[in-house]
């Protein structure tokens, strides 16, 4: 019994240490995916999933309670914020007189990221919605068990 508990603590130590390094790396990777996507276009959905995996890992290593504490706001409110961003990115071309959801490109390309269009804004919205949904589901389940 005593031995088991020691083992558990040992496991946690390894997991926690690796999580401390993996969390920023995974989030960096998710932002890379957000900008690069699968084949060059945006990858809001995969990026969002990778980012939420990072937080899931953190909640395994520590506890869901401590993961929630990292967020200034409840993860639930990331969902409508992301949806609003998607909505506005669709509305942007309408203001310029194109059909809804057309991609508008900004005239100058940005350093490192390259050409910037409204599709990226849409992807950022998707990224946030995915993180919000996954974390909300996860924390709701872990609260109830």
């Amino acid at each position, binding site marked *: 019994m005593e031995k088991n508990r020691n083992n558990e603590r040992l496991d946690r130590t390894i997991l926690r240490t690796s999580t401390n390094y993996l969390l920023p790396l995974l989030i960096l990777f998710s932002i890379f995916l957000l900008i690069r996507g699968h084949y060059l276009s945006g990858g809001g959905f995969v990026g969002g999933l990778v980012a939420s995996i990072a937080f899931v890992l953190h909640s395994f290593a520590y506890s869901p309670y401590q993961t929630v504490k990292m967020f200034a706001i409840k993860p*639930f*409110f990331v*969902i*409508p914020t992301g*949806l*609003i961003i998607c*909505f506005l990115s*669709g*509305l942007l071309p*309408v203001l310029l007189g*194109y*059909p*809804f*959801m*057309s*991609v508008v490109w900004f005239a100058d390309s940005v350093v490192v990221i390259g050409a910037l269009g409204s599709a990226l804004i849409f992807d950022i919205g998707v990224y946030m919605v995915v993180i919000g949904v996954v974390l909300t589901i996860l924390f709701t389940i872990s609260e109830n068990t």
Partner: protein
Amino acid sequence: MITNFILAPILMHMFTAIVLLFFWQKVLVQKIISIVGNSIAFLLCLRMFEMTMSNGYLTLQLGSWQAPFGITFIADTLSAIMVLLTALVSLAVGIYSTASLNESRIRFGYFFIFHFLVMGLLGAFLTGDIFNLYVWFEVVIISSFILLTVGGKKRQMEGAIKYVTMNMLGSVIFLTAIGILYGITGTLNIADLALKVAQVENTGLVTVTSLLFFVAFGIKSAVFPLYFWLPSAYHTPPSAIAAIFGGLLTKMGVYAMLRVFTVIFQPDYFTLVLFSVIAILTLLTGALGTINKKSIRRVLSYLIVCHIGFFIAGMGLNTEWAFVAIVFYLIHDVIVKSNVFMISGVIVKMRETVDMTRLGSLLKDYPKFSFVAALVLFSLVGIPPLSGFWPKILLFQETFKQENYLLLAALIIASFVTLFVIVRIWSEAFWKESPKPITEEIDHFESFPFSGKIALIAPIVGLAFVSLYIGLSANSFMKLSEKAAYEMKNPEIYIENVLGAKQ
């Protein structure tokens, strides 16, 4: 005319839904946002209807992807009518539900799902792409699952499970039919499909595919052998939800049928006979189902099934005048059906039950409300100056002209049974003396604050006035239906508007 405005009502409901998410737990704020959103969406729909009437078709190629490759949104007269009806009913039910639903249900995100549902309905009415139509159907179905099951009691879950299973089956058949259609034509745009399907040599395969669509939409609109889920699902949820379901959800199936069988497929002799047979059976079984039911809600649920038969009958005749009758009947039916469910909800608030044997003396206790209720109930039957009369008589005439006497007989029987059932509801619930003395505890309605009473009664009175207006100025509605029917019988105009004049 190419315009972004066609998406405005859809986006308005989406925006309202998103804003509601920010106020997840605040009941009062949610109510206010929902009413404001519904009102603005209603005004946008009104403007869109007016634009469609003055400019003809409105189209939009989403994201600048030209048809047939991208998703097209198109509004013709039929779509514009449906959009306006949806906006009207959603405004009425939205106001009604602020008072009739309890707080815990609103905390579960009722208004968010409600706006999502309406968004799906509007999308289904406006899309010009068969796969996109499927997606909007899914949006509607998923929202309606949630509305049906939230706060579920055992009885409610039973109906919901039937509803979920049948609609899943419908979706599978719908998707299969789309797959086959894509396999034989290589396109999903409705206008482009119309051109390509006409060139397919294997007409047998086309007929089979069209019937798969008929089965899929038949499940959703509850035609004869596939309707059994409806009466068990529609009488359990709160009346605000039943109102929007009864008014609009089955009509979405009817709309999809009309769209598919006027633009993509031109029905052959076999299909028309099948429609007539299904119509007769739907009318008769729906009518028979109403007779021995004691609960008002169950009677109304069976009446939905019965009246779907009118639409299928019109499609079986497949003449321009039959389509005029269908469109007119659609206008009447959406408004009156949702209104009768709201009335049944108010009766529940007054007497705690919708069982006709335990109701009574509503006329004595609430004379003004009973008058409005009578107006609505008898519009449903179609007593001459009220709205149901004109489309029914039009359909009877057309059936008589086509010498389809069996169908005519079924239509008349269904109408008489409707009359019988409505008169029975009137005499049992409103007229006769109450079987037991009404104690103050039962009467929830009196305990509502004044604003709550207004929110319950105003939508009912408003929709009652609309149905009265339809009956009294039937001439202008006849012209409107004729315009829609003309467009349905001449799909070339639709195709030209989507694909441009390059054909």
